[in-house]
């Protein structure tokens, strides 16, 4: 205890008791140690997932209780019995410790088993405390939460008060004083920093590709909803929107609930009128919007609704259809009515024509068949075919040479057949007068085509000019290179009807029958038979947009809490003058990183809705927008690779900065070399690698600049209020510590030697 503190303590005795206690408490180093320990605990709880915290605690308890107590007991035994032989005195305590270790290992095994058998631990493997529904904070928000602020404030107060009362203000103590003042300075700077810090990012397109000047950036944390009605725009900040947990829109569903009235936000009524009510009734933190097929009949199909039969299939064991995700096959959409597995294929057909059924049942040997029909000659014959084979169609005069057999090669792009795949046989047909090629399709025979030789036609492809198939000869290719299953509904009204199954196995005649109990075996995995289950039959399949939450274990931890996969529902409601019931709609919005329509992608787009009495309103879910005091235009961007490679080493964005007075200055920002302008720091944070799968990714324009990659840059934007104060405080801490540790003892030793020499004593002993 310093002499100064002794003197002050004496003077404290004059103070009334509570004040004396308070002042002594805040002069206490023990309090500082306790507060520091609380900060350590807070940091631990805030950074380690709760599942690890609990399991870690269990391990620690097992360790402390078993090993700790064994060590203490063993040590006491050793100390208390100096009379024992050395062997006995060593072995017995060691045995105790060994027993403790064994018990601790058993305890750990129990703890590991306990954690493995409780789903809670698996679910919360990446859940840090601030992600729990009762907190729903960002990392920064949690560390700025009032308990942490209180502890830090108490620590600073304690340090200041203890410094004033305990430490002599002498030159020799300048080190510790500097460190303490430095810590206070950092604290003061941090208050400013936290209060005024704004940060986010902006995307800039290259000017030569049409990029304009941008004078806004989007917040790193706060989400916002954007409304556009005509020329009126509204941004509604949503700092209260959750970010980690799902909140069901169903009132009866278990779990936390949410209701954020947007119409109570400032300017909402000015822009959208006072009658519209908009509420966020729930939230999906991580999911996707998906169009799914629902049976409209079950939800009350409207009159005049066209039949649209569909089946929902799933694979699995004989009595368990949960092996794979379910899939809906829609008979009316060619691309959606078939499944093409590498080992088998399945097609759902509704009311196929008799002719088609006859073709599908046509027997032939081998893996490929061709049905040849020549209506004029009343000729029909089924042939097994192989490449190079020539068929003479009886005495019709037709000869058919098989050129090749195989997959069509790519998905169809023909309207109505998008994403459909098929196999085909290319044959050369000679009718005695002319020769042409026919591409005969297997699953979609109506897509078969002829290719007529046209050497003078520059638009013709290498196979010839593409035409509709000649009606003089009909060729139907049948692919039996792998098992082909066809689920057939005899009538349009599919629901409640028994389905037929038609199977063609390679090298076997086709066979068919009814599908009993809605399932049939489709293949073998290892020793297990895989069954295909018809899970549902629909008569009126109707496509609807549904939010699908992503399973917890399928969420990327680094994306959680960033909103990039989040979905927000908005309930819109407006009273109409001539209607008893208000007009209501619910729309789902997927998050957009930038709310601009040009950056829309798939469902991550603004939604436009026609609201009675208001008109068309476009709504987008994105991030809070901040305005910059200047505009930025990206004039150049370069990814700089390591020499001789394509591995990025640096990125360089060259921008024109347009000031409000119209003047333009040029700035460059690179990795670790940000551009600072008007108090805003612009850091290089993202770039456009293009589509690395595309062979055109390296294409350049005449000026030698990439046109399919490096088209845009993403710059981090932020201010830095108070950073200089923090910097000064940091320098004080860094400079003060070595003074306190190394220079002060030197000075004290020198002073001691001086005193000793003045007193005539030897200075050898310190």
């Amino acid at each position, binding site marked *: 205890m310093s002499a100064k503190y002794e003197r002050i303590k004496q003077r404290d005795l004059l103070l009334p008791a509570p004040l004396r206690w308070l002042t002594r408490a805040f002069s206490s180093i023990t309090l500082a140690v306790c507060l520091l320990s609380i900060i350590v605990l807070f940091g631990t709880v805030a950074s380690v997932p709760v599942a690890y915290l609990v399991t870690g605690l269990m391990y620690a308890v097992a360790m402390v209780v078993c090993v700790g107590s064994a060590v203490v007991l063993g040590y006491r035994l050793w100390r208390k019995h100096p009379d024992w032989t050395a062997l006995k005195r060593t072995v017995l305590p060691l045995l105790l410790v060994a027993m403790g270790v064994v018990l601790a290992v058993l305890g750990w095994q129990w703890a590991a088993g306990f954690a493995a058998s409780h789903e809670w631990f698996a679910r919360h493997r990446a859940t840090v405390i601030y992600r729990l529904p009762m907190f729903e904070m960002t990392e920064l928000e949690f560390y700025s939460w009032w308990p942490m602020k209180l502890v830090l404030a108490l620590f600073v107060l304690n340090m200041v008060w203890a410094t004033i009362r305990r430490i002599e203000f002498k030159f020799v103590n300048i080190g510790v004083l500097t460190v303490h003042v430095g810590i206070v300075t950092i604290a003061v700077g941090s208050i400013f920093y936290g209060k005024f810090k704004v940060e986010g990012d902006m995307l800039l397109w290259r000017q030569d590709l049409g990029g304009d000047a941008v004078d806004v950036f989007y917040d790193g944390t706060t989400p916002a909803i954007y409304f556009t009605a005509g020329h009126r725009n509204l941004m509604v900040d949503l700092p209260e929107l959750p970010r980690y947990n799902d909140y069901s829109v169903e009132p009866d569903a278990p779990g936390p609930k949410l209701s954020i009235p947007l119409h109570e936000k400032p300017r909402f009524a000015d822009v959208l009128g006072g009658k519209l009510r908009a509420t966020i009734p729930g939230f999906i933190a991580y999911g996707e919007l998906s169009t799914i097929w629902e049976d409209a009949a079950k939800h009350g199909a409207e009159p005049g609704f066209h039949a649209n039969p569909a089946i929902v299939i799933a694979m699995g064991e004989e009595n368990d259809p949960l092996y794979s995700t379910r899939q809906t096959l829609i008979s009316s959409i060619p691309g959606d009515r078939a499944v093409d597995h590498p080992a088998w294929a399945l097609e759902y057909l509704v009311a196929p024509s008799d002719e088609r059924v006859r073709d599908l049942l046509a027997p032939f040997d081998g893996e490929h068949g061709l049905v040849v029909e020549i209506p004029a000659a009343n000729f029909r014959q089924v042939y097994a075919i192989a490449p190079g084979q020539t068929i003479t169609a009886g005495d019709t005069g037709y000869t058919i040479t098989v050129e090749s057999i195989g997959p069509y090669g790519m998905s169809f792009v023909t309207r109505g057949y998008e994403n459909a795949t098929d196999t085909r046989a290319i044959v050369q047909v000679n009718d005695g007068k002319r020769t042409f090629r026919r591409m005969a399709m297997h699953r979609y025979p109506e897509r078969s085509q002829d290719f007529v030789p046209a050497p003078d036609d520059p638009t013709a492809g290498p196979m010839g000019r593409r035409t509709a198939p000649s009606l003089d000869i009909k060729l139907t290719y049948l692919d039996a290179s792998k098992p082909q299953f066809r689920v057939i509904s005899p009538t349009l009204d599919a629901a409640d009807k028994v389905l037929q199954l038609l199977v063609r196995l390679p090298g076997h005649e086709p066979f068919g029958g009814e599908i009993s109990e809605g399932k049939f075996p489709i293949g073998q995995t290892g020793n297990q038979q895989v069954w295909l289950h018809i899970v549902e039959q629909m008569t009126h399949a109707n496509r609807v947009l549904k939010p699908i939450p992503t399973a917890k*274990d399928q969420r990327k931890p680094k994306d959680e809490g960033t909103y990039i996969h989040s979905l927000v529902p908005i309930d819109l409601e407006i009273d109409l003058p001539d209607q008893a019931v208000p007009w209501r709609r619910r729309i789902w919005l997927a998050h957009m990183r930038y709310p601009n329509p040009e950056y829309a992608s798939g469902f991550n787009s603004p939604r436009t809705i026609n609201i009675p009495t208001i008109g068309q309103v476009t709504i987008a879910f994105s991030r809070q927008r901040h305005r910059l005091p200047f505009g930025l235009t990206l004039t150049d961007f370069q990814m700089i690779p390591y020499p001789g490679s394509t591995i990025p080493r640096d990125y360089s964005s060259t921008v024109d900065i347009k000031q409000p007075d119209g003047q333009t200055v040029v700035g460059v920002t690179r990795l670790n070399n940000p551009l600072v302008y008007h108090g805003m720091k612009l850091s290089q944070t993202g770039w456009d690698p293009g589509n690395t799968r595309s062979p055109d990714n390296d294409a350049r324009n005449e000026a030698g600049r990439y046109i399919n990659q490096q088209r845009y840059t993403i710059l981090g934007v932020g201010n830095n209020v108070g950073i200089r104060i923090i910097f000064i405080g940091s320098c004080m801490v860094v400079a003060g510590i070595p003074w306190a540790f190394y220079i002060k003892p030197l000075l004290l030793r020198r002073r001691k030697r001086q005193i000793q020499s003045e007193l005539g004593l030897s200075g050898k002993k310190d």
Partner: protein
Amino acid sequence: MVRTMKRQSGVARVTLVLAAMMLLCGQAMAQAVRAPEGNNLPEPEMPDQMNAPAHGHSHAHRLADDHDHAAHALTPEQVGAFADRVDLSRFRRLAIFDAGRAKVLDTMAREHLSKIYGKARWKDPITDRKYDPVFTFLDMQFNQTYYIDKPVIHVEVLPFRRQMVEAVVAAEQQEKWLKIGRLAPLMFTDPRMQQIIDDSEADLLLSKARNQVLQAWFAFRDDLSDMKLVSPPAGGDHWTRLAEDPRGDSAIVRTGMVPGGGGTETIERVRAEFTRLAHAWHDADADTVNAAMNAIADLLPQVNPQSYPPSWLREAEYLYNATHKFTIGYVVYFVATIALLIAFGVSRLWLIRTGVTLLIIGFVVHSVGFAIRGIISGRWPIHNQFESFMALSWFAVMVGVILMIAKKQWLFGAAAAALGTCSLVIANTVDIPSNEVAQVAGILATSRILYIHVNMVIASYALIALAFFVSLFYLGVYYFQSRSTVQFAAAGLGVVTEGSDAKLPGPQAMLRDLDRAQMIVLQLAFWLLGTGILLGAYWADHAWGRWWAWDPKETWALITWIIYLIVIHVRIVSKAPALNTAWLSVVGFFVMLWTHWGVNLLLAGLHSYA
């Protein structure tokens, strides 16, 4: 890497099917004796083939021209005999440009095998013989069908492996394949296998496992003719393939057989030698193989000698590989530790001198390894977990040695030797992430502040580790104040009695000296860590625009610092400051380990590369 994996995932299925069919064709040709009738492909009888007595040696390589594949089937024993006669000493030191840097073929082969097989040395399951990585690498190039029914493709994640094995292996063989951890390339021809790989693409839990398997598969299919062996002409930095026309960037000539195209006369000779090598390898003609490899080793450096890595550098890299990145230095450290501990126990100066000498030898080995890593990577090697771990232990040993010599207190040497032993054993046996030399993320490559920040933090961690061992000394003396303990500590502190009790100081004097020793280290660690953290904050503000983000690594570095801040303040108020310091030093060491390792492995954050 991410982009590569995305590209791979996109084309994975198609490529797998095609490649698998190619392999099957090769196998069918190779196994002409037991080829099935007609045009049918052989049934994949994976598990049994592992133990089949005769194996195809088809040499369906892509650098050689068409050859009679079936006629030269070698048994595993013959392959072993061939391997014995092949002299790879010069060929393994050839330079090759891969993953953004020029390296020796030996490194490339090790990395390649590690990617495919999970280990750098392939073990033949029939003969139980382990092969040189370069031999296996070349054998897989020129004789790939030999491997298609062997356990080659590493499937690291057990649930994924189980799915695959259960899909394609007969029940009685499944356990065996599960234990091996590697699957035969032939198994990947099964459509069910492809289905499993396809299905795992959308599964976050399995996507990493899938990427690993695809990486292994693609590495197995890598083609030597695609590898960049020709150094750039003067002033250039673009290495080229042997089969590439140096006049055009993308005019790659790959007929699938003998590489052709333009190039200098020397390149043409190299190509010819490669063809000779491939044929000779096919015929297991070791003499011709050796002659061709030596010719290639002579010719390739002559193509563009000014840009070809110098022989001393290639030699150094080979030495680095051969010595397990110099981690074998742990043997010397270990002997030094034992010598010093015995020396303290018996208090003999000659034994102390022996221990110190060994420690310095170990440190030299450690330093050479660290320096070569720096030379190979072209930077101060602190950019990833392996490098920071090695730098940490190197710095700790260096400080320990300096303190030992400066203070003549041998316990610093013992602490340094023990720490060196532990760290090099870990580096030698544990697969620390990023242990291969590779280019680093741009953000790390373009900052000078980073060097100071990381070095200071690493140095502080090193000192914390050193202080931990000194504090253990303290605790030992404090709790076991017997004569032997005091003698042990006294020798550590430089008071060597040579068996006599005359000079033996009392326990309290020992404890006072030990406390001073631990404080010397801890004070420096405290300052370095504090400064390192603040420099990191400065760097973060500069690079990312925010000086403090409560990222887990930042938080835990601060917590580590606070532990030592508590030490300083506890010493003021505690009645047993030295004892509390020693205990807190032990706690601080484990907190530092968590900060350095646990946070990286278990907590996601901005420092995941560190």
